[in-house]
């Protein structure tokens, strides 16, 4: 039986007869594997980016949202325009007897407003929260201070501004103590936030943060909340906290049928799972598209192998005359196909790694996203395995054809 090393040597010899032809054929596989690798890696990076954002909130955070749970991407309107979460709900949630396992309860309101200082203006996202918000979002103060319970209680017109807001309104001047005009009122700047990489949900660089009480009254003019975040005292107590919240809110809103809830509850885990599902589906879809290019590459391999078998008919005849069995010939041509696809696969994995690196670098530098670089080991393994499978799938037919050739007819082939 022929040795493996000889089979490999023959395969190398075989594909180097027509070097440029082999390179072009390999290119088809390279493009396919590169795009699959890139899609899979970017998909994982995007997922990590979003999940990382969600994990800013600890796993014991429970989000109460107004309206119905959205049933699909087009069903978001119900949550935005809903005013079901009122001040009374917030007050009742704070009562220890209602939700004993709740540690902190932070109401949020948000909207857009134009901020102005002297001749400068800036359209900012205005977020109203409580004194616990700083810890809740893990915010870093660069200068000044965050607002406290007294500011919230007194509906003080004080703001903490994001880095970008500070730059736009104040340039290099110290903003602390200055008064910013928001809507009809003037708000005193008491603190600035450290610059941070852009997350997926809230860009705090472009945000103005103030006590929810004054935001409700002086900027947005609303008496309801856009969110209420309840922090359970431990991860284990999250389910019972949710149960207590639901009971309380249904009671407050006179709801006896849970299907008619005018609020819904999300945990960090729910959101993370949903995002994983979405990115998962997207990755699969995009990978399928990329896989088509790989099939085209495979067809290219088969085409070239069929041409090669025909061109080398006399060689096949001669090898058989000298003692090559059908299996020897089949192996020889199959190894050539495999060598082509494996070279393509390895270059494709390297190309995919490089492309992913470039894409995530571009996302960081040009889009300012906190885009992590993920080397998808799964993607790399997958790329190599798929290349092998493509080699077998598209190489076996030409190889079998070669193996079955009759020695005499092949020797006399013109």
């Amino acid at each position: 039986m022929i040795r493996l090393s000889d089979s490999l040597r023959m395969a190398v010899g075989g594909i180097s007869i027509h070097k440029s032809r082999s390179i072009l054929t390999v290119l088809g596989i390279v493009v396919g594997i590169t795009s699959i690798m890139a899609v899979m890696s970017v998909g994982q990076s995007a997922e990590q980016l979003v999940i990382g954002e969600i994990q800013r909130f600890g796993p014991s955070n429970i989000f109460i949202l107004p309206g119905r749970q959205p049933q699909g991407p087009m069903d978001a309107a119900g949550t935005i325009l809903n005013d079901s979460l009122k001040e009374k709900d917030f007050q009742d949630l704070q009562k220890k007897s209602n939700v004993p396992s709740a540690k902190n309860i932070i109401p949020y309101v948000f909207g857009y407003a134009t901020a102005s200082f002297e001749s400068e203006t800036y359209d900012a996202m205005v977020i109203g929260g409580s004194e616990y918000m700083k810890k809740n979002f893990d915010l870093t103060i660069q200068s000044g201070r965050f607002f406290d319970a007294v500011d919230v209680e007194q509906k003080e017109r004080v703001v903490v501004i994001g880095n970008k807001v500070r730059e736009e309104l104040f340039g290099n001047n110290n903003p602390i103590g200055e008064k910013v005009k928001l809507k009809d009122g003037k708000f005193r700047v008491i603190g600035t936030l450290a610059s941070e990489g852009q997350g997926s949900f809230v860009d705090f660089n472009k945000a103005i943060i103030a006590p929810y009480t004054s935001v409700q009254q002086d900027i947005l003019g609303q008496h309801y909340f856009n969110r209420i975040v309840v922090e359970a005292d431990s991860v284990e107590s999250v389910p019972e906290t949710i149960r207590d919240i639901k009971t309380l809110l249904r009671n407050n809103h006179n709801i006896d049928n849970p299907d008619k809830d005018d609020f819904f509850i999300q945990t960090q885990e729910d959101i993370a799972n949903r995002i994983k599902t979405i990115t998962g589906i997207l990755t699969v879809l995009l990978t399928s598209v990329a896989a088509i290019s790989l099939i085209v590459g495979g067809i290219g391999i088969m085409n070239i192998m069929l041409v090669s078998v025909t061109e080398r008919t006399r060689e096949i005849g001669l090898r058989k005359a000298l003692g090559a069995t059908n299996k020897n010939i089949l192996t020889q041509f199959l190894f050539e196909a495999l060598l082509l696809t494996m070279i393509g696969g390895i270059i494709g994995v390297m190309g995919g790694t490089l492309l992913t690196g470039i894409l995530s670098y571009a996302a960081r530098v040009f889009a300012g996203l906190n885009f992590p670089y993920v080397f998808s080991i799964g993607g790399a393994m997958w790329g190599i395995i798929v290349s092998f499978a493509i080699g077998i799938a598209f190489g076996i037919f030409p190889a079998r054809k070669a193996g079955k050739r009759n020695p005499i007819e092949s020797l006399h082939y013109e």
Partner: protein
Amino acid sequence: MELIRTEKLEKIYIDEEVRTRAFFDVSLKINEGEFVSIVGPSGSGKSTLMQVLGYLDRPTKGKYFFEGKELETYSDDELAHIRNEKIGFVFQAFNLLPRLSVLENVALPLMYRGIPMKERNKKACELIHLVGLDDRIDFRTSKLSGGQKQRVAIARALVNNPKIIFADEPTGNLDSKSGGVVLEFLQKLNDQGHTIVVVTHESYVAHAGGRILHIIDGRIEKDEKVEKRRIISEEGFSK
């Protein structure tokens, strides 16, 4: 000792629904150590007969015994092994692999026996020396002259130390000088005890052997013993 025996061997080709009888009613015996020439005009079936005797093709009818064992009982793989180990071929068109070196071409049959490279190169070197091509050992065979190519082919045919060598018009593509060298080699090998079957349409080639089978229209018409063999090394080769 008997090496080859056939009984009423017949080969029919069907090519695009046209039946062609290449040879029929061939019953012959070849002993070890013989130098047999199969002679006939082109189209007489002599090449096809050689291919069947060389296990490159199967007969349509009749019986073929090699070393006393009947062909019919062998599978395709077994035939490949027999071709590899017991038979050497020399073709009119040389049939070397042009992108391989002289050494690699000669060593090729040993590769299909699974012999490691070092060992097969050693064996191939010996045979390249025998045919006098030491200085061409690393040349690609496409760079060689016709006569040199045929000497490479002879070295390759010998590399597995076969029981029999089949040569199909071995001098057909060569000038008289190169043809003489090749024929002289075959004669020398025969003197050393190798069994040789040469297919030719030229009687002066045929007379290098000790026995001539005349084949006309697919039948052996005459089995002639050569009384006075032409010794190529003494008489030379002339067309």
